[in-house]
């Protein structure tokens, strides 16, 4: 390895292999003559490209992540990210490999005993995927936090593993100052903790499990209505009758109903279903069966989610020259909904499969796609105007980005996390109090106990239960520390089971490989979500309880 200069006063070392990594990445990325390398890369990442796509992968490959401490929690987190093709990482650890590392960390070899841990783990991570750029800092994270806060500015995201709450508080301030996302991961015996800290994280592609079908059967736009007119759903041809897409059937039947009832909507789902059934001729008409199943979309179209409405009503919708692309698009979206959209966000343009002749279905699909395209164009115009108004380049945001935004508009999310200092100072909310008061309050109690253990360590310079001789004494002291924490967060009356206190002392701050692997897995998933801007990240602190194999996310 060679010294790669200093980085804000911190000696950052690069492995010698870095040159080959750079070359490999260049090969991997160049379209020609690296077509083959590209195909190889696509094959290698195939199973994940199917989840987060080319865009997500690009975000991962551009990311520069810092990981503090090279124990199993840090190593496992990085392992999962490196395998997926993370761009580059810097591992910070100031310790040497000891015997215990050989019993809990797979990224350490027997022959590494006595060597510097950051270097050892870094090189074994690199060996796992040579297209990743590996760096390490052979210094304790606490020292770097204290002496070189600016060091953290360069990173996309910082993952702090196995840090006590005092160091975390400082690191969080630094990260917030530089607007770097902080992810906290900790393994403690059979308990784990993961938390995100950043002022704001915006999600466009939330990819919810159950997609809301935004089909507008209840208020078809003119082009859709015109298409419906072209169909004679009472056709005498039985083959045609059973091959008209259910979307057309629903809109037509609803129209007829309204015409017969002075423009009124059916008062109940049952009424609508009866109207559908009356037009059905044979029991095996799949399109009618589908229409009956989907009839609820007419009587109770999917409402806008509260999280989405919260985004629309966010104060950042009032944009200025400092506003991010995201908020400018939200602002345009809000204008669109108040005007052209008539209360609805842009149509996403997707259509579920419908039993139908091919050409009927394709025509319907085209009408949906055209409407989505038109909506996106309207939003785009508004975006350009807004950009001009705030004195910015009107072409600052690409058309592709705006279309992508519009396609996912219904599921926009904004996450804001309290600072770690705030979390530690504040009294907890009623939600947490309720969990703590519940009959089985284990996970809430473990949250309190982890904080109590840090407090214990602050006072006694050791974690509870570290030494056999002081075991009994530590139980009493930990109980007292837990009582302190409880009273500070405003839960004096809550009780914590003696068994849990005993277990925390039994664990004695150990980092078990399997617990670290679970926490490393969760931390890597969250990192991927934060880096790609896809899916929905953790909303609050998470406690993982390996005793019961459960986890709870708290609202603090």
């Amino acid at each position: 390895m060679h010294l790669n200069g200093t980085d804000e006063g911190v000696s950052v070392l690069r492995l010698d292999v870095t040159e080959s990594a750079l070359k490999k990445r260049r090969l991997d990325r160049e379209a020609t003559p690296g077509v083959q390398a590209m195909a190889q890369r696509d094959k290698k990442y195939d199973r994940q490209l199917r989840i987060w796509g080319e865009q997500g992968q690009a975000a991962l490959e551009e990311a520069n992540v810092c990981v503090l401490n090279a124990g199993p929690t840090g190593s496992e987190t990085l392992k999962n990210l490196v395998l997926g093709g993370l761009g580059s990482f810097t591992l910070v650890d100031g310790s040497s490999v000891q015997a215990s590392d050989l019993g809990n960390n797979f990224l350490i070899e027997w022959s590494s005993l006595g060597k510097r841990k950051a270097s050892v783990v870094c090189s074994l991570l690199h060996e796992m995927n040579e297209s990743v750029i590996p760096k390490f800092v052979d210094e304790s994270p606490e020292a770097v936090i204290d002496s070189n806060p600016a060091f953290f500015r360069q990173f996309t995201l910082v993952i702090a593993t196995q840090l006590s709450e005092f160091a975390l508080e400082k690191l969080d301030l630094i990260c917030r100052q530089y607007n770097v996302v902080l992810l906290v991961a900790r393994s403690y015996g059979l308990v784990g903790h993961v938390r995100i800290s950043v002022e704001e994280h915006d999600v466009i592609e939330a990819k919810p499990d159950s997609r809301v079908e935004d089909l507008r059967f209840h208020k078809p736009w003119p082009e859709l209505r015109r298409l419906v007119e072209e169909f004679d759903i009472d056709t005498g041809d039985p083959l045609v009758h059973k091959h008209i897409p259910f979307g057309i059937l629903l809109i037509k039947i609803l129209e007829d109903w309204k015409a017969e009832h002075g423009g009124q909507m059916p008062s109940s789902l049952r009424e609508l279903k009866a109207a559908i059934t009356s037009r059905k001729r044979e029991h095996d008409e799949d399109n009618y069966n589908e229409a009956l199943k989907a009839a609820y979309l007419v009587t109770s179209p999917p409402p806008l989610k509260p999280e989405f409405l919260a985004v629309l009503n966010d104060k950042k919708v009032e944009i200025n020259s400092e506003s991010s692309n995201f908020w400018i698009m939200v602002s345009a979206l809000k204008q669109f909904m108040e005007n052209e959209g008539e209360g609805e966000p842009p149509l996403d343009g997707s259509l579920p499969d419908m039993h139908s002749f091919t050409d009927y279905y394709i025509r319907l699909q085209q009408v949906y796609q055209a409407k989505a395209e038109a909506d996106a164009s309207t939003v785009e115009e508004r975006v350009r105007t807004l950009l001009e108004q705030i004195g910015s380049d009107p072409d600052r945001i690409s058309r592709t980005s705006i279309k992508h935004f519009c396609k996912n508009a219904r599921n926009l999310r904004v996450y804001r996390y309290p600072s770690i200092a705030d979390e530690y100072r504040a009294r907890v909310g009623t939600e947490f109090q309720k969990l703590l008061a519940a009959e089985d309050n284990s996970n809430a109690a473990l949250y309190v106990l982890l904080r109590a253990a840090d407090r214990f360590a602050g006072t006694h310079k050791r974690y509870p239960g570290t030494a056999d001789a002081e075991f009994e004494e530590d139980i009493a002291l930990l109980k007292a520390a837990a009582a302190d924490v409880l009273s500070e967060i405003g839960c004096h009356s809550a009780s914590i089971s003696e068994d849990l206190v005993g277990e925390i002392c039994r664990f004695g701050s150990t980092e078990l490989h399997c617990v670290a692997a679970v926490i490393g897995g969760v931390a890597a998933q969250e990192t991927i979500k934060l880096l790609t801007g896809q899916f929905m990240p953790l909303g609050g602190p998470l406690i993982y309880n390996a005793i019961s194999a459960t986890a709870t996310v708290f609202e603090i």
Partner: protein
Amino acid sequence: MMKRKGEDEPWALEPEAMAETVDLEGRWEDLDRLLLRPGYIVGPGFEPGIELRDMIKNDCRVLVIGAGGLGCELLKDLALTGFGNIEVIDMDTIDVSNLNRQFLFRMRDVGQPKAKIAAERVMERVRGVNVIPHYCRIEDKDPSFFQGFQIIVLGLDSLEARSYINALVCGFLEYEPDGSPDLTTIKPMVDGGTEGFKGHARVIIPGVTPCFQCSMWLFPPQVTFPLCTLAETPRSPAHCIEYVHLIQWGQDRPGETFDADSTDHMKWIFEQAAKRAEQFNISGVTYTLTQGVVKNIIPAIASTNAIVAATCALETLKIATMCSKGMDVFMQYTGTDGVYMRTFANEKDTNCIVCSPGVPVEVEADITLEQFIDAILTDSRFKNKLLKPSVSLQGENLYMQAPPVLEEETRPNLAKPLRTLMSGESGILNINDRKLKGVLRLQVNFKTADVDMDAGAGG
């Protein structure tokens, strides 16, 4: 630091020499806290101590089924949890698309057997662990092979394989006359599975917790398209791909077996599907999608495998040592919307065709199959439940009431002594009858004690 004299760098010893050495002192200090100290929330009969640690290191044999995404993680996790004797079975070879998560493999290993490479890599990295690979199908192994392990951990991606192992392992289970499981015949299994950001882990203790078959309904059926839609009214790219795969291949390439692992075959499917899509004005057929549809590819990432495998390994440790409370009993993980990790206590199916005890029936030693059928027809417990019972012993059909070909073929058995048909042993017979909703399992015991093998062996 190490219990060996003299060397400056004891860790630089040759591997053979190292096998002889005891562990470095303090190597397992994290695990020791769990295994050597008394606990407060532990399983029944937890006895902390060196013996316990030595037991998992020396005596407890664990079988890992599958050396893929979960398998690689499991081998690592078990090795670093103190299990010293692990075997792994997998029939697959390494593919490039495994490398984003199967961290024991490298590009140079492509084409090599997964089990072999995985075992080598874990032994290289974790000194002292013994991993024996088996590069074959699970069906190639005799039941006695599985019998030889104390715990079986499943890292599989197929329902069939899970179902097969479950039936085989539950087949080891025997019940006491009072209907409680004979604890000495229980072989615990731990099962994991993942898909994208989601996964599950569960503990199957046959006779105690629900088996795989008891909760088969947890697994959604695969989505299939009607063939006539594919042929006549395709509407999506997947319809076009499935048409070429299921119908056009047979028409255009008669006699040729389609091989999903052949690039040429896959390319042909893709090209034909693209043509068909164009004909029908459908967009979106890509090579990636073609592969996905034809091979039913399940997306997979390293982090989810890590979470699920580590959960399984922890439960394996709990079962082996009782050092903590076992999970209750099916864990679900979802990482797409925040983090959701909960356990569910799903229930055993009391009539499960795989793991239920069966109704005890005691019969005379010399009873014939025909007399046996008459006996159960008149047994008050099955009153109005049986009309024309057919009798099977595992895969052997002793007497079938229908169809006529089988009735005729099995009729000679009616006159034979049941005991002969059951090879002289008590056991479970399956009764099928149109009046029954499912299968009736009967635990048949013969009355006389002179050749009772269980009693003889147990004495």
